[in-house]
């Protein structure tokens, strides 16, 4: 069932860096394995073992939408997703240049810009991420989940301190 106002919540700490999300994204959308076609990409700091998946934030005030000279980018309120109308798109790549997250891509094989469409409500990156580094949840819940997570860490730390001083 499609739920309105759901977002991708990414927890880089959980990411194992396997890049399966990139693979399934490209295959789902283009029928080809090719990370440069993927809407989600994992950025890595290998010497620190840090992996950060980067994807479209579906911004409320989306710079890509604002900068588009052809009015080809709009918000689909049903899915809470920013969409490209390829009939209007002139391929100027202004949206690629302005996106602060690098979430808008340009595919040099098809000569088209592309971005995350949340797989019409069933994001494959989420479906395949067994460690749940990417979750698809109600926008309202993001903050409370992060609060719970942070609180759990605080709780664990205070327990540790208490044990040490005991």
């Amino acid at each position: 069932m499609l739920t309105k106002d759901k977002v991708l919540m990414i927890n880089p700490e959980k990411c194992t860096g396997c890049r399966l999300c990139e693979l399934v994204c490209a295959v789902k959308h283009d029928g080809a394995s090719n990370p440069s076609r993927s809407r989600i990409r994992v950025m890595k700091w290998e010497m620190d073992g840090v992996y950060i998946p980067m994807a479209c934030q579906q911004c409320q005030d989306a710079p890509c939408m604002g900068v588009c000279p052809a009015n080809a980018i709009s918000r689909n309120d049903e899915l809470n997703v920013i969409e490209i109308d390829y009939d209007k798109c002139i391929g100027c790549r202004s949206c690629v240049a302005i996106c602060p997250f690098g979430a808008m891509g340009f595919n040099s094989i098809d000569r088209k810009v592309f971005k995350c469409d949340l797989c019409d409500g069933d994001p494959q990156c989420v479906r395949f991420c067994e460690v749940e580094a990417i979750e698809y949840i109600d926008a309202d819940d993001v903050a409370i989940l992060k609060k719970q997570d942070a609180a759990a860490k605080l709780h664990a730390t205070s327990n540790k301190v208490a044990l040490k001083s005991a």
Partner: protein
Amino acid sequence: MALDRKIAYINLTTGDVEVKSIPLDVRKKFIGGRGLDAYLLLNHSKKGCDPLGPANPLIVSGGILTATCASATARTHIMAKSPLTGLLGSANMGGFFAPEMAWAGFHHLVIKGKAKKPVYLFIKNGTIEIRDAENIWGKTTTDTQWAIQDELNDKEVKSLVIGPAGENLVTFANVMTGIKNAGGRSGMGAVMGSKNLKAIACRGTMDINIAHPVEALEYNKRFIDQITSAKVNKTQGTLGTPMIWGATNSWGGVRTRNFQYNQCEYADDIEPEAIDEICEETIGPYHMAGCFGCQVHCRAQYRIPSGPLKGTYDEGPEYTSQGAFGGEPDTPRAETVLVGNHLVDQYGVDNLEIGSLISWAMELYEEGIITSKDTDGLDLRFGNDEAVLEMIERICFRKGKVADALAMGGIPASKIFGKNSFDFLIQVKGMSNLHSDERATPGLALNIATASRGSDHLRSRPAIDLYHLPEKVLHKIYGNPVPFKGKLSSEHTEYVGKAWQVFWQENCYMGVDCLGICKYHTTFLGATLPNFEDWPKVLYYNTGLKFTPKELWNISERCNMLERLFNIREGLTRNDLEKGDMLNHRYFDEPCRRGAPDVVGSMIDKKKFIGMIDDFYEHKGLDQNGIPKPETLKRLEIANEPSHML
């Protein structure tokens, strides 16, 4: 399409590069990956060629499924004649290199000749460039990778590199990618070093079109669910391979003090849970990393917790590092294992081989065959942590008489050390045995004795033999895709049926190595994992090629026979202690001293062992000398090899 990935022939002496397509009939016969590599090695090397000479071809490949929508297709395979064994050299590693090479347009590289000065290859979207590497020569494995990324100004470049050990032609130097992914065994790094080839860098953005993308995606999901639901993979995903070390040591399957004991005592510090705690404390609750497209994520991340290298990041330590730097030299201390693991990663040397050789040298020191005069005063006694770490350094940089001899490999070193040093060398075909002790497990002993690349557990080990599965289950696994009418035993101490299990596993592992998939995704540690029955669908959905399970079995058998043909050409004989399918005498005349009640006192019954070899040869279609029968070669359609089709 996966099928349009090319093969490139690169001559480093002349700088010539030739690119060819891989014909469909070649694919149907050898698939890709290790299988096709074996074909290429047999066709592009001459009998008796110097492993460290320009004529030895270095072959690098991905499997046919590499970077397709199948699970865990991360594996890179490297093949050449081995400078360690003088026989087949073959190494396999995870990471992200092979997929990048496939996206750059290539499945196989055949590298011949020798560059006049250090070079590296840069492969990008169908083009191959030979670049100067003089500024990079001398760097560690990770520094090399970052230096190449900086030079090319591209952080997405993935490189396969050698470290100082490869440059110094240590005969068991490995090739590395990422922090710790190693094509470890048989000295492929030394072959690269001998060619003045420091690295192969890849960057690709070319499509690999999936033949049936919707089905491939759905089947991959099913596959992943099957793989992640296996208990063994869940444990691998939290503790990594150290969990195997802990389990094996608990019943007495870990060789200690070279081969004097079969269990490491006082090892609490390097038990899997203890290593995991260090990972947790130094990295955090999420400290497991994965190779390309793999949901097992068995690679632990850690920082060295104490000592001079405190805070240094690395990954692992695997089962092998625990054995090499903990169990074998009897130094079961976490810091020693973690630092040792870090040093071998940085210098680019096989942890398993170097650890085994250091322990061998320690026993020779104990026996008085080598003395402190030979070691320049280093106290090479068992249990000396500093000596282990110092020896890693000395061997990789070939410092001092003993280390320089060890850097040549066990058999050449035994000729330098003289006396009865060879008797203490725990090796097959010149390659040190894994630190596991197979005296209580005849099936596993047969595996290391007959593995194609020398003593090795990843070419035919029936590891599930240790699970005591009911015979009915064993017949279900080992009776497909070709029937087996003989007896199979649930007892790991038995000899009955083990030859068939080893033969079956040999074909199974060749299968995954041709596909380019990790062994954790097949019948290796988990009895419920995919094999021949499941692969035809994955192949069809991803490449459009149709095979039956039986056809895939035949291809595996054929490719294994190519490896056997290469080994025979280079001097393999049945009972030769240096180049044969034979174990060190200690397997037959020294009983296990520690471990579980059914393990204490175990050793391999030589007569029964010879019977297992007979059976194994029969299953493979070899005569009693281990040579393929003419009808076998005909049946496998390789009677006319080398055929020079590619």
